[in-house]
């Protein structure tokens, strides 16, 4: 979760919300992001080629309930996106329609008919 894709301004590392939480725990924004997921019961799989970050990413911090709520709401208060949407090679034309590898986003269960996110 700490990695960056080319061309993507990674707000998870640069937005004040995450930087403030990181500063109060004396850790990186990457560790904040990983800790938030782990506290939700999710296993994380950080990727990094830097030995410094590999060593750092295994040391999680405990976020307060307020910090968890702020992070939980970041997709409403800051922005939301699917990394999958940015991977152009996954979008292909089938029977004259743009599909996600042959499927609609509705068939995947990502969106409802109106295009609202379901996940």
């Amino acid at each position, binding site marked *: *979760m*700490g*990695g960056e894709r080319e061309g993507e301004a990674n*707000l*998870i590392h640069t937005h004040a919300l*995450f930087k403030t939480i990181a500063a109060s725990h004396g850790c990186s924004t990457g560790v904040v*992001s990983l800790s*938030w*997921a782990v506290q*939700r*019961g*999710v*296993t*994380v*799989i*950080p*990727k*990094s*080629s830097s*030995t410094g970050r*590999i*060593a750092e990413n*295994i040391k999680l911090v405990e976020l307060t309930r307020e910090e968890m709520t702020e*992070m*939980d709401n*970041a*997709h409403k208060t*800051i*922005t*939301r*996106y*699917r*990394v*999958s949407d940015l991977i152009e090679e996954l979008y*292909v034309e*089938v029977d004259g329609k743009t*599909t*996600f*590898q*042959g*499927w609609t986003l509705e*068939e*995947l*269960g*990502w969106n409802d008919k109106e295009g609202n996110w*379901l*996940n």
Partner: protein
Amino acid sequence: MLTVTLGGLGTDNEKQLEESIIYALQNGYRLVDTAQYYGIEHVVGRAVRNSGIPRSEITVITKFWSHWHHDPAKALDISLRDLNLGYVDVLLMHWPFATTPDPERKHLRKDQSPTFVETWLMMEKLIGPQCRTIGVSNFTQKTLNELLPQCEIVPAVNQVELHAFNPNPQLVPYCVSKGIHVMSWR
């Protein structure tokens, strides 16, 4: 916990990747996540073998791509050969969508065979000494609701995109309620 991605690595990068994995394992990481799609299973396997950490302490996850949906047993054989670690801990269906086999790889619509339910039923038969457990990746409540009534074995894992800007607030508790462990890729 460590994910190993990036396809198309050159020889220099392979060496660097191997060193990064060994460094991670020697610093406490115990889960290695890879996939056939990344084209690096041979490097992952070599790193695990050269790490000095007993194989039994490490969880190795790999995934097969859509052109193997008709034959996940063959996909498992390829991962076993390339990883060369004796067994895989978790084999995942990388995405629910399928293509026809190589070399055509034509994208199939959702209702065309092999459907993900058909593929999953074939995966259930793979569980054994060389494939300890099975799971899915990039499944949603919709596709899990379509799969679960049809299967004998509930997926152990659903690995999905998950981060603060795509937190899956409904999917996570849903999976927990079904006994499916959520892993996050980003």
